[in-house]
């Protein structure tokens, strides 16, 4: 296979990892919302934890994007 084509295909496949981050983020915010609607008074205190979870989950998606970017620009 043409190595340049393989590079672009690899970058595309690496982006699939972002689906995992999407599932994680959807889960995170969905669970938070369902919990927050059940007990709105407790929701405000957990906003920091929510954002921490958001940043940690989002970072994993960014890792796969990073692999794709490395394939596109650095390899």
């Amino acid at each position: 296979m043409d190595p340049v084509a393989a590079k672009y295909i690899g970058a595309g496949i690496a982006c699939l990892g972002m689906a995992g981050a999407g599932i994680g983020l959807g889960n995170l915010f969905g669970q938070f919302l369902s919990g927050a609607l059940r007990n709105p008074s407790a929701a405000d205190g957990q906003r920091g934890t929510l954002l921490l979870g958001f940043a940690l989950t989002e970072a994993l998606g960014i890792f796969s994007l990073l692999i794709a970017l490395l394939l596109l620009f650095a390899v």
Partner: protein
Amino acid sequence: MAADGHGHSPIKQFEIKEVLPIDLFGIDASLTNSGIYMLVALGLIFSFLYFSTGGRNLVPTRLQSVSELIYEFVANTVRENIGTQGMQFFPLVFSLFIFVLVLNLLGMIPIPGLTFTVTSHIAVTAALALLVIGIVILYGLYKHGLGFFGIFVPSGVPAALYPILIPIEIISFISRPISLSVRLFANMLAGHIALKIFAGFVGLLLGAGVWSILAPLPLALTVALTALEFLVAVLQAYVFAVLTCIYLNDAVHGSH
């Protein structure tokens, strides 16, 4: 990373340019745009904290209440994660937090030809992460002696599982500085590349005849992404501080 010739490559913004070549006994210690950005950040932090807290008013002025807010925020984070014993590490966590925060935010200011995000280079974030993990190991050994290695032994599991669990714990400990540094650097790098790519779409669409009516779409997306990047810049600084606290907690309180 090799920036390819033409000027619109999305990774060109991460280029390190030498400003003042300094050769220190064969070691390249030149002042680069990265170094200048760090010095600017240091100057900003120092002058902000110096002038805002210089008055020491009982009723804080506007600037003083901002620095008090940041102080309270970091102090609460340290207290929640390490406990009151951990307050000896407050200066470290505060410095890391505010340094990363200011560098992240400075990178968000668009200055044509000069914009540079220091934290988008793994050399910088890895140095910070190694500093944190080095302090964790040294302080843990100093405080608990060899008992510090008890953090690798999970409590409440049968001893028969130790041969499997202890290597896993050791691997997870070793991967901490890697994930800590890669998280910050990758977030900054990916965010700025995404901004540049979407901004590039605006230019592409404007030059595409009838399709130029679609140009406001990527422009709006760029604005939204910029807002997201500001959130990420603050969040990643916070995450860096929180994870530093969590790792230091192991060193202060020993095995779990």
